[in-house]
């Protein structure tokens, strides 16, 4: 297929290399010459990897899949920013036209005690699955549902729920937080389900259990800096956290009664 003439730039990468979970890890300097500016950040990594392979070196491992900002797999800290410098953008949607010729780029994995590195830029985020398993759902067995229009949901509520539900579970909020708190992720799920009438019956149990699992998994506390929301590729609103705190308070009080 024909290829458009894309401008090219030369970059210097400093990439975190770590063979296994047990390995100590270190930065490695790798040059990335002649990178087309229309390539995405991950395509830049592909180009670098293909060169490493041809030289018989171990390519850089990183998680990715959809490459359209929706699966939540990609997880790099680029020059100190989870998912890089562009707001509301996952690493896979970031394009090299945002960088300039000769620039040095530091690439690290998402770092948090609850997200151990398993190789290079790849981390273990199963703690998020455990949080969902502990209450991030509505208990309704298949076959039990009434007609979908039986219970009207005001458009505003549906939109509100949707906005929280767009979280892709990437963990950038945790990586951005000085305390490695998972509050933005947890609150997005809590609010998605709390605003819907279908979520009402389990409202209290849900927030209590999810918060408990979050703490047990080793995530830190929220100190209200808002860094999470700024790093979030889906721009999940910081307000979710305050709303969850109030859900949590109400639920704890009720449970004590």
């Amino acid at each position, binding site marked *: 297929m024909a290829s458009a*003439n894309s401008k090219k730039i030369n970059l210097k990468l400093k990439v975190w290399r770590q063979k296994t979970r047990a390995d100590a890890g270190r930065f490695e300097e790798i040059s990335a010459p002649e990178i087309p500016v229309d390539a*995405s950040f991950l395509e830049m990594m592909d180009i670098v990897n293909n060169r490493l392979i041809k030289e018989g070196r171990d390519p850089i491992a990183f998680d990715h899949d959809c490459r359209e900002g929706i699966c939540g797999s990609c997880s790099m800290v680029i020059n100190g920013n989870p998912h890089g410098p562009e707001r509301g953008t996952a690493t896979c*949607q970031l394009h090299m036209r945002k960088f300039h010729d000769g620039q040095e780029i530091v690439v690290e994995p998402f770092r948090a005690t609850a997200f151990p590195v398993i*190789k290079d830029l790849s981390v273990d985020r199963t703690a998020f699955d455990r949080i969902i398993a502990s209450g991030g759902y509505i208990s309704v067995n298949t*076959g039990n*549902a009434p007609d979908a229009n039986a219970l009207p949901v005001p458009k505003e509520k549906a939109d509100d729920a949707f906005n929280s539900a767009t979280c892709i579970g990437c963990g950038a909020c945790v990586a951005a937080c000085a305390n490695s708190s998972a509050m933005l992720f947890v609150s997005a799920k809590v609010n*998605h389900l709390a605003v819907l009438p279908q979520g009402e019956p389990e409202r209290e149990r849900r927030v209590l259990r999810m918060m408990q699992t979050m703490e047990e998994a080793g995530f830190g506390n929220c100190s209200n800096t808002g860094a999470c929301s700024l790093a979030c590729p889906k721009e999940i609103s910081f307000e979710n956290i305050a709303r969850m705190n109030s859900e949590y308070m109400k639920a704890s009080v009720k449970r004590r009664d």
Partner: protein
Amino acid sequence: MKLDSKAPSGPISEKWSKHKFEMKLVNPANKRKHTVIVVGTGLAGASASATMAELGYNVVTLCMHESPRRAHSIAAQGGINAAKNYQNDGDSVYRLFYDTIKGGDFRARESNVHRLAEISPNIIDQCVAQGVPFAREYGGTLTNRSFGGAQVSRTFYARGQTGQQLLIGAYQAMMRQVDAGGVKLFTRREVMDIVLVDGVARGVLARNLVTGELESYAADAVILATGGYGNVFFHSTNAKMSNTTAIWRAHRRGAAFANPCFTQIHPTCIPHSGDYQSKLTLMSESLRNDGRCWVPKTPGDRRPPEQIPDDERDYFLERVYPSFGNLAPRDVASRQAKFRVDEGRGVGPTNVAVYLDFRDAIKRLGEKVVSERYGNLFDIYEKITGDNPYKVPMRIYPAVHYTMGGLWVDYNLMSTIPGLHVLGEANFSDHGANRLGASALMQGLADGYFVIPYTIGHYLAGTKLPKVDTQHDAFRAARAEIQGGIDRLMALKGSRTVDDFHRALGTIMWDKVGMSRTDAGLKQAIQEIQTLRSEFYEDVRISGDKSYINPELEKAGRVADFLELGELMARDALERKESCGGHFREEYQTPDNEALRDDENFCHVAAWEYSGQPGRTNWNRHIEPLSFENVKLATRSYK
């Protein structure tokens, strides 16, 4: 090989109820004694795992992703069909059934398609109960949009993120069962083989992608829900890890592969821009509700779009298909775009694109409404191309998107290997030669929530299953074979990367087994693929080690399978001497370039049986005749 569809007798609208009544049941106390393996956690796998665990089965679920929620279903944008008739516009189960049969160009089994349409309303009910935030009207009821190939509004959606919301619903239902102990979940596991004992599927062999170890899992039945194989073309709208490995290894163990050449090329994707490109991004078909496709009337007109006045534009879909216009089905719309480019009227820097223009929609509805409907798609487009579609028309071009072919299954979703069931995009069942938009999500969830939970019970209750564990010789043999294959690949230390081979295969496939196919081209493709495959086994280079995360090794295994599948697709396309749906043979077309079906000779499913030996591929072609008792065989027309 016998292909018994097991479709129940009786009137079409009663088949499924009758079958549900006649199927054997497993009593509640016995369910927990049965272990069922589910491979894949997309819509099909997650919904099946959740529902079977709710029923009391012991479910073991594996996926190659880091989390079940990352399955490729997450990326579906546009929506999900259901015959709810909430819009009061004349929709019905029968109409959805009819549209799907016709849309599939009469190459799908009527009984399965009718069941799908019947189940569709329950899916929406289930998802809403789980908290899936579908789009709603101010009055609080659900809203709908239209999709290609239909004249009613029956598509439910959650902005441009329908797949995400449906998958999260199914994932949450499944995680609830993980917490309750009904589902044992194993992530970052790639299934490399299906283990047969006495000809019956009794387990799988998986590679732990973190440690590199091979692990054995035994069960009473195995379900594959591993998605589609569009990545055989290298460039497609599929996620990068989507692959054919699990179904291909099952095929090599005896599961027939049906209609492998039926590939859907989606008309609205962001065009290819350079050699570094790793995938193509879909722009949802829902955009064709309000966007208008055009090219300049004059070949070689290089003026920027805003300088081309209306009377010098060719709104080609509206011109050729006045009644469906921009909403013509995918195969039809894709081919029209290709024709325009072949005529030298393509646009953009590569001349391999057409415009999808929102100027009139913005004039009619205002920017706010357009942004509410398509905002996130416009953002994706701008991020990738650097152009703002509110100002400049989008450039789009067809790309490989979906594979209608897959493992052959009967009405119970069982393959030709007893005990091996196949759900979702991995099977061939419901879409014939072309899938209608918003019908894959419907099928995945129908299979997982509402079909397999019944039919698996029928299988387990009616089959004698001697005790088998992972110490059985069949597991040892499979393990030795897989280990040998991995060692062989690692030892090659050749000079070309896995991606090099994959791209080369993709080029052959796109040029000769893509949007239009010829006898000579297909024959050439088969030879070229065979040559490429032998080069692969001499010259591929995988660096790194097999005992820790090694994406190159993972990709190599997948590409090795694609290199065989590609050949089978070409053979299937060569043997199918007709044009139907997504399969367009240049030799078989009407004077105005429409597909020319041959119902006399090809009104059947082609199911291929693997009969190759190590190092040599070979297949036997079998057929399942299709009969149309309800929808009359007719030439598909969207004019």
